[in-house]
């Protein structure tokens, strides 16, 4: 038992040395995660802070000016053109000069003063309908403010029905708060899969795997020796992401580190199991790399990272149940932002344990089978 442990440690040490002694692979273990973290943090946001818009103001009244002043004063909207003809709307949107065109009819102020409903037409470039939808939401908010103001000035109540909204766990609804904790799992998955898959494939390609077999190592020990270094690297990378989230982006941490690391460790076991299983199928490094890439794409697309799981069709929602990344992202969000403990986290933890056990035993079966 002790001998076996010693052998595993020796093999792990050799693996770690092999990973760390090459400056290029050292570089690719540490720098890309931090770089990606920063890119995602700054770029991956659905919030808009610059909306170029054009105006077709056919009323040119005090009321319409006031409404437009609300848009211009919001810092988000940038007026790029004042249009004179309705025909100009088409070219402005087509050429992407403006994301929105706001059209105010001639009777805008007259209708307002006479107590009638006045319409404001907003025409948006739907080539990216998500961006357009967000921008239209911003316009609605500004019009609401205008409405409330108008009513007060006319001596009426502020507004008959008001919607007061509040967001839990992410008061300003920043996409970054959603993105960065999710990266803990996403980035480590990529690297642990590649690392585990490549370490076995490299030995096979270079023929050193056969040499390993004539040593006193038993197959499970070889597996453990390959798994341990990936686990360590995964933990270090998760910590890096966590540090960037807290020290650079200052996203408040609501939960406990113990819970988070327990979740991450289970997740790493599951992803290393997948990596080992994959390496038992791949004959060359290139295959190991392409196969792991082939897995990572659906894993990350079906994880809820970029698009919510509940918007997927039902069949795919079931498919996400075997995706370890889905649970890792859930755990990261729930511990990091919501601060839940082990008890509420249980539904996310046990599937990871099951995935880990299944993949590891399948991998060890494959190894034995393949050696025999």
């Amino acid at each position, binding site marked *: 038992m002790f001998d076996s442990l010693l052998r595993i440690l020796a093999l792990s040490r050799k693996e770690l040395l092999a990973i760390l002694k090459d400056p290029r692979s050292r570089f*690719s273990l540490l720098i*890309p995660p931090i770089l990606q973290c920063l890119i995602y943090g*700054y*770029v*991956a946001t*659905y*919030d*808009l*802070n610059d909306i170029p818009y054009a105006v077709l103001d056919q009323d040119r009244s005090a009321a319409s000016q006031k409404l437009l002043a609300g848009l211009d004063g919001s810092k988000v909207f940038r007026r790029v053109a004042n249009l004179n003809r309705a025909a100009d709307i088409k070219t402005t*949107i*087509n*050429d*992407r000069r403006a994301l929105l065109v706001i059209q105010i009819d001639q009777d805008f102020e007259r209708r307002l003063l006479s107590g009638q*409903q*006045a*319409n*404001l*037409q*907003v*025409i948006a470039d*739907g*080539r*990216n309908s*998500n*961006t357009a*939808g967000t921008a*239209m*939401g911003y*316009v609605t908010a500004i*019009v609401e403010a*205008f*409405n409330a103001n*108008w*009513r007060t000035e006319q001596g009426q*109540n502020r507004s*008959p*029905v008001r*919607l*007061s909204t*509040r*967001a*839990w*766990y992410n008061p300003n*609804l920043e996409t970054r*708060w*959603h993105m960065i904790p999710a990266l803990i799992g996403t980035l480590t998955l990529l690297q642990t899969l590649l690392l585990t898959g490549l370490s076995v494939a490299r030995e096979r390609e270079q023929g050193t795997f056969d040499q390993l077999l004539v040593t006193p190592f038993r197959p499970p020990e070889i597996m453990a020796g390959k798994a341990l270094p990936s686990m360590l690297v995964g933990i270090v990378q998760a910590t890096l992401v966590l540090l960037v989230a807290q020290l650079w982006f200052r996203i408040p941490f609501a939960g406990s580190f113990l819970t988070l690391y327990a979740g991450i460790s289970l997740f790493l076991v599951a992803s290393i199991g997948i990596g080992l299983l994959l390496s038992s199928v791949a004959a060359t*490094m290139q*295959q190991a790399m*392409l196969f792991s890439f*082939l897995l990572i*794409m*659906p894993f990350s*697309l079906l994880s809820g990272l*970029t698009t*919510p799981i509940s*918007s997927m*069709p039902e069949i*795919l929602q079931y498919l996400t149940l075997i995706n370890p990344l889905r649970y890792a992202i859930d755990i990261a*969000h729930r511990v990091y932002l*919501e601060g839940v403990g082990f008890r509420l986290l249980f539904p996310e933890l046990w599937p990871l344990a099951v995935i880990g056990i299944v993949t590891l035993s399948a991998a060890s079966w494959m190894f034995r089978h393949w050696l025999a």
Partner: protein
Amino acid sequence: MVLSPSALGHFSAKRLRLWSLVRKESRQVVRDPSSIALGIVLPIVLILLFGYGLSLDVTNAPVAVVLEDPSPDATDLAASFQLSPYFDAQLLTSMPRAQELMLARKVDAIVRIRPDFSRQLSLGEAEVQVLVHGTDANRARIIQTYAQGAVGQWAARRTAEGKQVLLGPVTVQNRLWFNEANESRYFLVPGLIVLIMTLIGAFLTSLVVAREWERGTMEALFVTPVRPDEILLGKTIPYFALGMIGLVLCLLAAKFLFHVPFRGSVTLLAGVSMLYLLVALAIGLLISSTVRSQFVASQIALLVTFLPAVMLSGFLFDLRSMPAVVRVITYILPARYYVTLLQTIFLAGDIWAIILPNAAVLAGMAMLFFFLTRRVTQKKLA
């Protein structure tokens, strides 16, 4: 001094060399299950996932409507949430129960109609409280907008029924051009083409040439009469073909499976796609000839081509909202121009004011990167 052969003989020898290289390279692609997997299987998987699986649209969001006021006004308002196609509303009467559901993430939002709602309404100052689960910020914001919409529709209905004027003086009428149905699939599927072309062009190619260097077969090629140009062309042609197969698959799926509107011309789309594929291939070749190691080449290819194609191309995230530094970087990324071209050709049509400048940039980039690759691939050992 080599005897100069007749012009015709020279030409046909060259063609023969190129042809055998292309044949060797194509066989390698066809025989290696992993390249076929990446070149054909992955595109199909991605097409299906993007087309059927991924959607930024919110429908049937589970919400708890807490009705603390049993008056007809309040019940009427709650009903408008239940009727909305965007919500899967669950009617509750107590707030603690709703909070429990929210903690367990069984609902995405709580709509609270307070006990004094109808009294406040008659005074003209009613308030509806909406609490959203903010972890997924984008979804939360969409839900807020839809909640606003549900209340707005209720107010409009009451105004129309003449019960009370509940609408603000100005109402906003939104119109979404090019995507009237507000389907995120319409821009996700064209964006997918960019991902697939990038994967095949840059990622796969970078691995292939790096492998030749790593295994020393590149040196073996050097002692043959093959010229560097021919090696490059021999590598480019099969992967170019693979990329075009991916494009055709995507187009067929977009048209027949997902019914994404196609308003431009196919010739134009094929033309700009070829340009982009050339740029991606050239970048892949450049990376692998420079670093000559499969692992490092694949990492760099991911970092400089694939990730930017997802993040910095305007495919998912709006370019204008990025920090100025990042926005400057996007101008040197080919994916940015290709995404603009695709979204326009697909959804808006042949708008030359957009197509000409973007296609010109892509053509320039293709020439630049092939020139650089040609400089790097000299017949000499490092």
